[in-house]
């Protein structure tokens, strides 16, 4: 920027200083050019532009982060959130419909900051997991064309698909770097939902599923095959 400014102000580069906002002439600070007019070169009134575009780089390292060692071990995530989830459900043997009576979630979040919103995060994430486990599937034909690109066909879970009851509990073991010791919670409620539901299905009808969604049709088929 000094190179460019030296042409604009018509002084040698070594007579220029920079104060964070402008490049100015050390011996006459009233002679100055602001960064916005230098950053992409300087444009004169007649449209002629001189000078180079400014390049910058920046980086940051989170505390305690390390690259994997020769065993592939290291600290890649800075703060971890641990949890457990469980599901009580019943299955209609005639229709194959799965009804979730009770879904429980417990997470160590370091520090609860907003009790209403954090419960909302868990309940919302669990609902997303229920959608993936029981309802949602984008179907394609052989040409790759989506066959059911409508929420109501895909399908998106609604209020009536929500569990009868949620139990949401938190443990607070402070984390090292979050504000007030807080740990993340946005992603975690989704993680164990499908396993909990599939385990509960196995507990109910003795059938192991390894793919989701587990639809009523698949349940009916599985019950038939078991006979």
């Amino acid at each position, binding site marked *: 920027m000094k190179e460019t400014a030296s042409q604009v102000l018509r002084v040698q580069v070594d007579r220029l200083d920079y104060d964070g906002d402008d490049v100015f002439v050390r011996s006459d600070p009233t002679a100055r050019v602001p960064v916005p007019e230098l950053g992409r070169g300087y444009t004169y009134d007649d449209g002629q532009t001189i000078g180079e575009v400014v390049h910058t780089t920046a980086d940051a390292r989170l505390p305690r982060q390390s690259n994997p060692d020769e065993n592939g071990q290291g600290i890649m995530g800075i703060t971890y959130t641990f949890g457990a989830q469980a599901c009580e459900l019943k299955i209609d043997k005639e229709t194959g419909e799965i009804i979730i009576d009770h879904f429980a979630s417990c997470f160590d979040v370091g520090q609860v900051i907003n009790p209403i919103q954090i419960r*909302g995060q868990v309940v*919302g994430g669990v*609902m*997303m997991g229920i959608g993936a486990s029981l309802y949602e599937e984008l179907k394609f034909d052989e040409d790759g064309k989506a066959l059911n690109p*409508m929420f109501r066909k895909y399908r998106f879970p609604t209020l009536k698909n929500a569990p009868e009851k949620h139990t949401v509990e938190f443990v607070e073991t402070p984390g090292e770097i979050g504000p007030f010791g807080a740990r993340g919670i946005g992603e975690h409620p989704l993680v164990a939902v499908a396993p909990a539901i599939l385990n509960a299905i196995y507990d109910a009808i003795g059938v192991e599923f390894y793919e989701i969604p587990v639809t009523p049709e698949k349940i009916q088929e599985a019950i038939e095959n078991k006979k």
Partner: protein
Amino acid sequence: MAEKINFTVNGKKRTVEIEGWEKLIYVLREYLNLTGTKRGCDDASCGACVVVVDGKATKSCVYPAKKLDGKEVVTIEGVSEGTNLHPIQRALIDAGAVQCGFCMPGIVMELYALFNKNVAASREEIMDALDKHLCRCTGYEAILDGALLAQKNLKK
């Protein structure tokens, strides 16, 4: 083939010239600049577009603008008075029902229509009404809580 439609929006008489293909949501968002009503799906699957037409909760993404002549429309913009929130809005916020907020205008208008018609609506009727609205953030628990709280407060 342009035609003029005369209707009321949030208590104000409006005249809008339409070409004929428009749906109500297009008239609201594009012609009247009332962007509080949201487009979630354009195929009546999600409920984000719900507004109240002649007292009835209506999916504006499929409601033809041609039918608007003489109608009274209330949108989310017409529900609060300046910065004084409507009790339905207040209750939903207090219950933690608002996360990203995208589904909320449709839900507020649904409850507005429902409770204006019958503030003593049963839990079943409330759930039937809310079942038409998709929400990805909340898992619906706080929304139902908020609706019941709104009902309780409106009854006072």
